[in-house]
């Protein structure tokens, strides 16, 4: 018997996913143009070899220690790997060009928005964004008022989540402006593909992602306090028990920075120092991966042991810069999200390049009525929770659950927004349990860097895969996997 090949397996019995955009196949089940090269290449590979490669990829992540901790009520810190699917997601050059311009535009406007709302507040006075929305946000930080960080950048690193809807268009699902994570998976997925599919990769004209750490280093250095020629920059991590610790360590290593914890730093005379074996050393820029609430126990949560007492005072004094600035969470609030197109028009006088998902705001009477009537077609999200928790998916709920949730919404209208269920596109993904390729929902976490007069968009990103069949939430803490994302160069 002739051994089955990768391609035969891919084509054989590949189920349709009606109502969703399939990234690999068109409506007639033909392989899309930009996937031809890879399928032609893989056509020669036996299924068994592909399975071996898949297993090798898994082991490679384990040995590299690319594991994350999952916290739940029952167990603490179980180490798991974030499963990596060998078949890459491919984005043609033209599509990517639009995405890239859209991301740069969006992040520029959001940075201007942050500067405005913490200083002049013009957009509020002009009633483009309702003031109540910001003033009631727990992320609107008193500590940022009447203060502009160096280079006027608030969000140096932004993780914008994109999806492709059934209409074939990309939509922004959410902005992550606080301490977005995931880039380490982008880098290590790329290493894995290069190791496992070297010839294919080198023949495919894929845009590099390795320049991310270099660009990040440049951005961090570019926002150092004025007058510091050779700034000392560090990465501040909550420690080894943080789920993204691997990423903090990897970035520090690649950028040649010290990876510090709160207890390694202290503030004296409004400067920040780290404790070294040869005494104190002044620190100029902190790429902090510790949340706002924890970075300074004298300003925010007094019980925090992860932060540096007095840091906010040193920051406002201009003696140290923080990447990202505190208080940026106010702009990635899910309720503010719905105003981003207006924000772009207001500051840049341009039409938004990337689409926003239509959003119903439960605090508005008309929207609330619509939401209550169409709850079964909508996804309802709390505006103040991250990580995919607390999401209510209308079409998966029972009648009783729908009734109950309506009451929940009515009781706390500002807390909830609703959006139509976006039909996340699907991508052929190797499923270990069945030994077959099956369509799975995907999204794309992109990474945009903003420094002093420079913007960089990582050409690629983290394609997250919902490994459970039919699951729409693609998040590492909710049983997802990932794919390498290939942005093709113009030929």
């Amino acid at each position, binding site marked *: 018997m002739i051994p089955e090949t990768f391609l035969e397996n891919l084509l054989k019995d590949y189920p349709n996913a009606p109502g969703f955009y399939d990234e690999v196949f068109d409506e007639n089940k033909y392989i899309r143009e930009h996937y031809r090269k890879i399928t032609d290449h893989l056509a020669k590979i036996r299924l068994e070899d592909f399975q071996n490669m898949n297993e090798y990829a898994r082991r490679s992540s384990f040995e590299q220690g690319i594991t994350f901790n999952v916290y739940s009520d029952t167990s603490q810190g179980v180490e798991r790997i974030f499963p990596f699917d060998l078949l890459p997601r491919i984005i043609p050059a033209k599509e990517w060009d639009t995405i890239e311009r859209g991301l740069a535009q969006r992040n520029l406007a959001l940075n201007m928005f942050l500067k405005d709302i913490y200083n002049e*507040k013009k957009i*509020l*006075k002009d*009633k483009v964004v309702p*003031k109540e929305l910001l*003033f009631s946000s727990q992320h609107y930080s*008193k*500590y940022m*008022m009447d203060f502009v960080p160096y280079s006027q950048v608030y969000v140096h690193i932004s993780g914008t989540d994109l999806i492709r809807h059934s209409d074939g268009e990309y939509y922004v699902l959410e902005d992550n402006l606080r301490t977005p994570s995931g880039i380490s998976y982008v880098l290590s997925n790329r290493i894995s593909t290069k190791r496992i599919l070297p010839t294919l990769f080198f023949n495919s004209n894929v845009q590099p992602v390795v320049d991310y750490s270099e660009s990040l280093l440049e951005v961090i250095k570019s926002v150092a306090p004025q007058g510091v020629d050779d700034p000392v920059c560090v990465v501040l991590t909550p420690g080894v028990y943080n789920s993204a610790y691997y990423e903090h360590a990897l970035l520090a290593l690649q950028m040649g920075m010290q990876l510090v914890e709160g*207890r390694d730093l*202290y*503030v*004296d*005379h*409004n400067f920040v120092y780290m404790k070294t074996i040869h005494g104190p050393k002044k620190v100029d820029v902190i790429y902090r991966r510790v949340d706002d609430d924890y970075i300074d*126990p*004298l300003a925010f949560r*007094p019980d925090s042991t992860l932060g540096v*007492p*007095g840091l906010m*005072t*040193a920051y*406002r*004094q201009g003696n140290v810069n923080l990447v990202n600035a505190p208080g940026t969470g106010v702009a990635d609030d899910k309720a503010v999200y719905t105003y981003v197109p207006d924000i772009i028009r207001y500051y840049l006088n341009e039409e938004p390049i990337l689409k926003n998902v239509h959003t119903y705001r439960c605090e508005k009477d008309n929207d609330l009525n619509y939401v209550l009537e169409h709850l079964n077609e909508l996804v309802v999200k709390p505006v103040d929770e991250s990580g995919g928790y607390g999401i209510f998916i209308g079409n998966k709920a029972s009648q009783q659950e729908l009734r109950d949730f309506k009451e929940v919404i009515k009781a706390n209208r500002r807390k909830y927004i609703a959006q139509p269920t976006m039909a996340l596109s699907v991508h052929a993904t190797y499923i270990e349990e069945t030994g077959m390729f099956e369509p799975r929902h995907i999204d794309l976490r992109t990474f945009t860097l903003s420094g002093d007069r420079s913007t960089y968009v990582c050409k690629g990103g983290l394609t997250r895969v919902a490994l459970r069949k039919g699951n729409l939430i693609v998040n590492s803490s909710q049983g997802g996997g990932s794919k390498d994302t290939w942005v093709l160069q113009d030929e």
Partner: protein
Amino acid sequence: MVTYQVIYEAENHYEHEVTEALFKFLVLPCTDDTQEVLEETVENSLDLPVFHASNVFGYQLICIRVAQPFQHFKLKVSCTVRKKTTGMLHITEESLPLEEELKVLQSEDFIVDHFLYIQQTSLTDLPVARIPRDLLFQKDKPLFDYITDLNSRLHNMMEYQTGVTTFSTRACDVLDNPRGVCQDYTHLMLGILRQQQIPCRYVSGYLNQGQVFLGSLQMHAWLEVYIPSMGWVGVDPTNNMMSDQHYIKVADGADFDDCSPLKGHIRPTGPNTTSHTVEVVEQSQQQQQ
């Protein structure tokens, strides 16, 4: 003009040895239109250098980092403050007509610029339904008159009593049980005014101990209300007074949390006690009548 000698002392005791600490004291009188600090000395029991920093509102903090084992820490701040004005502070003009006052207070720009002093905090928040009607602004007189009226109503309604409230007592608790000290009076009045969108802020400072004022033995709290054309006007419901040359301001903010005289972080954490003493002595009596 009056000159005061102000002495603030804090003493901390720790049950277990502390190896690392950062303290921030918000106790130094500020310099503004009404007063200036002429001289300032800071001493501490560990003989460590101190440094200054600005808080979010621009007020001077005295900070000290300790990086040696200790169980006891004492700080003494002495300064000479001169009040530049006498009588009621801040008032430069007559009240505007009520209608114009309301127009200012209700304008979008004004609300956006002053939201911090209009928005309730967890310490000042009050359910509107529970505020007695006679404490609300009936809009039948200028704002200034309502403020003085409310000041004396609250003064009469409350009973001054120490030891019944803490730093975390909220305005709504005070409404239920109208007893407490200066910060309780202040939080309650802030809560009532903010409920009506009238901007007002918490003020911490010292009182002339030569007068018969309640609360002068410790740091005092009162509030400032924004009155169009007049600016920030100091009101002290504890003593039913408008702030005058007997009031020495340290800082202001949204509520007590912004004005807390001492914030510190120690490693390792453990039980501790703090005591504060305050001495305010009038130095010259050459008041201009």
